[in-house]
């Protein structure tokens, strides 16, 4: 009886503690978000690192970076067969499709694609860096979870959010690295 009472009290204390960790301003922000309607509030929910990026206006202080990158790295999943480079042709379609990668919104890839955005670095000739294990893994990881190498990057975490499956991520990786891909056509 007594211990149960004690556990209950402890739980209440803990709940109180976590609640009070959210300052009055953050509570006010949450209240405003809720007033926008339940669907808005639902889609505005943040994971821990989205909240951290918002708090620091997308520029993390150095002491936060290490743990942030570690948490993001832990989110990366790989294809069951372990192959990080798939079929570049399927990758091309995924790269282009606005519902999937939508990569042209920010990157040039195949230089023939008109009207590509320039928020991200140009990727024409990306395959020049070769297909060593390190390059392939870096590229795969970047596409699956951009935040695992660059905290709060503009580039969204396509794999983490399920926009690309691990297999699809491998296809897009091939689109960038395969020497036969139009990204790497000799010019």
């Amino acid at each position, binding site marked *: 009886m007594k211990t149960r009472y004690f556990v209950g009290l402890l739980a209440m204390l803990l709940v109180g503690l976590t609640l009070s960790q959210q300052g009055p*301003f953050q509570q*006010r*922000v949450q209240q*405003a*978000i809720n*007033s*926008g*309607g339940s*669907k*808005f509030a*639902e*889609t*505005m*929910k*943040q994971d821990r690192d*989205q909240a951290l*990026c*918002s708090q620091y*206006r*997308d520029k993390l202080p150095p002491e936060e970076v290490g743990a942030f990158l570690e948490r993001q790295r832990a989110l990366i999943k790989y294809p069951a067969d372990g192959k990080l480079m798939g079929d570049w042709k399927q990758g091309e379609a995924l790269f*282009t499709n*606005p*519902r999937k990668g*939508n990569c*042209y*919104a*920010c990157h040039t890839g195949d230089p023939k*694609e*008109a*009207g*590509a*955005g*320039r*928020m991200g670095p140009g990727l024409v000739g990306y395959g020049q860096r070769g297909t060593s294990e390190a390059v392939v893994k870096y590229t795969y990881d970047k596409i699956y979870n951009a*935040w695992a190498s660059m905290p*709060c990057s*503009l580039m*969204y*975490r396509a794999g983490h*959010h*399920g*926009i690309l499956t691990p297999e699809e991520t491998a296809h897009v990786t091939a689109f960038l690295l395969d020497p036969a891909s139009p990204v790497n056509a000799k010019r």
Partner: protein
Amino acid sequence: MRNRSLWIGFLLALGLGLSIALTQQQEVDPYKEAERQRELFRQTAGILPGELYAAQGEELFGQKRGSKNVSLEACDFGLGPGKLEGALTQLPRYFADTRRVEDLETRIVSCMVNLQGFKPEEIKRDDVKALTAFVASKSSEMPINVVPKTSQEIAMYNLGRELWYHRAGDRDMNCAICHDSYAGGKVRLSPVRSPRQGLSNEWPAYRFEADKLYTLQDRIAFCYESVSIHPPDHYSEPMIALSIYMLTEATKGKNKFTELPGFTR
């Protein structure tokens, strides 16, 4: 899984979609294109669609309506009852009678409820839009002058700034990523401006690509949809907070409103 068709909707509606990129070999300058479309309207119809909405709003404004059967002529937009000249330039602001910070659209709704006796659920969105176009037309090309002063206005501005940086959704987006980090650049074909550069200074506007009148709230909703976040309800705090944030920054950047209602893509 959240709805991704919203993202594609954004791209298509903004003319950033693939089909457009492929059919238009040359990148059209969106400003020149808007200018061309505007001239076309002037020549063929003799009137701009925005002016039609404003005329419709003017009629509604003067009509005796609602359960109290009065017009909106006694509505106070912050400069005194019935004073419309330049009213939009100082909105959103705090109103003592409703005890909240209101933007133009919200203020119109408040007056329809409190003055005319409408029930909130009776109010038609299209009426509010036409009325917004009419009242805004009295601030055409005037300098924006939104300076939060009261504690309520300052609090609302701070909320807006927080929402501006709020990263969420499966595109990990916030407003700042496109409108600050990339201001002056392009997302696909669209040039993007920052609040200091005057973002939000052309609304309400007729968007010829959508063939509809968009208020500032509609435009905010459109950007939320584009990053697969369900937009906040009209007249809700997030709408007003983001508006006061953007218009305060536009004031700091010494920007003017364009012709109102605006004419844009």
